[in-house]
């Protein structure tokens, strides 16, 4: 990297988002440099998913600014938003596969609908991407409902990388998987990211996964980033909040709010 003041790939400045009276994001500041693998950790319901949906424009923040490659995207709509979205691939928490379409069409969806690639060609690309995530062409014709959770995540990953994005978001990539399948998915993320040279933002509350797939970690707590730094430094963060979270202690400054 050039060293001097590289433009962050993604930057959030003072992003605030509320639902009714409930403040979910209360001024989030976060910058992700090109090529970095950023993980944001935080308890369930702290607003991690809301944060990435704000970046994608699925949700609109009330305040603050969001930049992608130095361009402000906070209020973009229509075709300007589409142009920005073409830089992104997203793996949703529950994979969010379209259950009305076979696996290959799920993977090829963005190519066919978003970029006007012919079906025949999109299908070849889909099968190639499925191979990248370790799935044979035999699953291409199956319906998503016929797949296990781990396989659905793989298909979701294939869909996220299908259009060669520059940035990939992973929403809880290992949640709901058994430890072995979780590790398989972690490995897959690490190898695809290395392969494609993309910038990634992952959110998780699984510390094993966070350490494995990140080079930088930030912690979201009460609507703000309370700590951010290289993954190697997380054990010496000197933040009581981070320490409590990474060691999974019930006692400490973080009080579980029973009401979400």
């Amino acid at each position, binding site marked *: 990297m050039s060293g001097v003041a590289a433009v962050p790939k993604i930057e959030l400045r003072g992003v605030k988002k509320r639902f009714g009276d409930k403040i979910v994001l209360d001024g989030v500041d976060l910058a992700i440099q090109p090529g970095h693998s950023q993980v944001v950790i935080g308890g369930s319901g702290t607003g991690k998913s809301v944060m990435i949906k704000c970046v*994608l424009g*699925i949700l609109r923040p009330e305040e603050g600014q969001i930049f992608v490659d130095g361009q402000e995207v906070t209020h973009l709509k229509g075709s300007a938003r589409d142009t920005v979205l073409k830089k*992104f691939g*997203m793996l949703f928490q529950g994979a969010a596969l379209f259950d009305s379409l076979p696996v290959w069409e799920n993977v090829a969806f963005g190519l066919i*609908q978003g970029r006007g690639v012919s079906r025949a060609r999109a299908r070849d690309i889909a099968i190639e991407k499925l191979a990248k995530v370790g799935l044979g062409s035999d699953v291409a014709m199956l319906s998503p409902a016929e797949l296990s959770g781990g396989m659905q995540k793989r298909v979701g990953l294939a*869909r996220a990388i299908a259009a060669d994005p520059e940035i990939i978001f992973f929403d809880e990539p290992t949640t709901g998987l058994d430890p072995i399948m979780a590790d398989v998915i972690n490995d897959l993320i690490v190898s695809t990211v290395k392969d494609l040279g993309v910038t990634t933002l992952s959110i998780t509350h699984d510390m094993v996964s966070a350490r494995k797939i990140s080079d930088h970690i930030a912690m979201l707590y009460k609507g703000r980033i309370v700590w951010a730094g290289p993954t190697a430094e997380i054990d010496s963060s000197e933040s009581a909040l981070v320490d409590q979270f990474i060691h999974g202690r019930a006692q400490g400054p973080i009080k579980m709010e029973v009401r979400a």
Partner: protein
Amino acid sequence: MNVFAAIGRVTLGFFRETGRVSLFAGDSVSAVARPPVYWWLIAQQLMRIGYFSLPVVGLTAFFTGGVLALQIYIGGNRYGAESIVPQIVALGITRELGPVIAGLMVAGRVAAAIAAEIGTMRVTEQIDALTTLSTNPIKYLVVPRLVAAVISMPILVAIADSIGIFGGYVVGTASLGFNGSIYLKNTVDFVTRQDVTSGLIKAAVFGFIIALMGCFNGFNSKGGAQGVGAATTNAVVSASILILAANYILTSLLFSR
């Protein structure tokens, strides 16, 4: 407990919902004309909304026509006016009962199915996924259903009209002693073009209401399975109420002198 506060809250909530539905309807209608047009999805929805509703609509229309003939006969009997049965059956079916019965049956079948499908897509983030794949969910999900419902309903009602009149004919000839050819002649001579077209116009409006309420409630469902269940119920209830209200307004507009 403050009664006024409660009334105020309900009233505000009502206007807020009305506003949101209107905005959603505006977005959807303006998306109809803009490319891309998903022809295949429209065809698919025509099958689901139109073709698969045929048995339900046909059966209810048949029994409605039959019972109408019976009641008119009994009522007319008091004035010695039993012979009016074919005319009133035809009028009642084409103007009111054909569109309304078909509308309510399709509301139960289709608005529920649309709300459940789109609601599930909402809570499993499939709608968000569409957005990230550069596909406008309104165009991809709402427009095909709206277009298909607006096309299907008049066709369904035209069929319901014929079957309803046939139901009256069966009852009239089999148990009320009407002569078959006279029954048919009276029907054909009496029914005007306006009776039929007014019913078909109503049908198109009802189709719009059904698809709109299904899509709106599905899009706005939250939570898990429970949220989808609530969306489904709301879709059917709101579509049914709106159909009956719109029917009154349309009748007064179409038959005002």
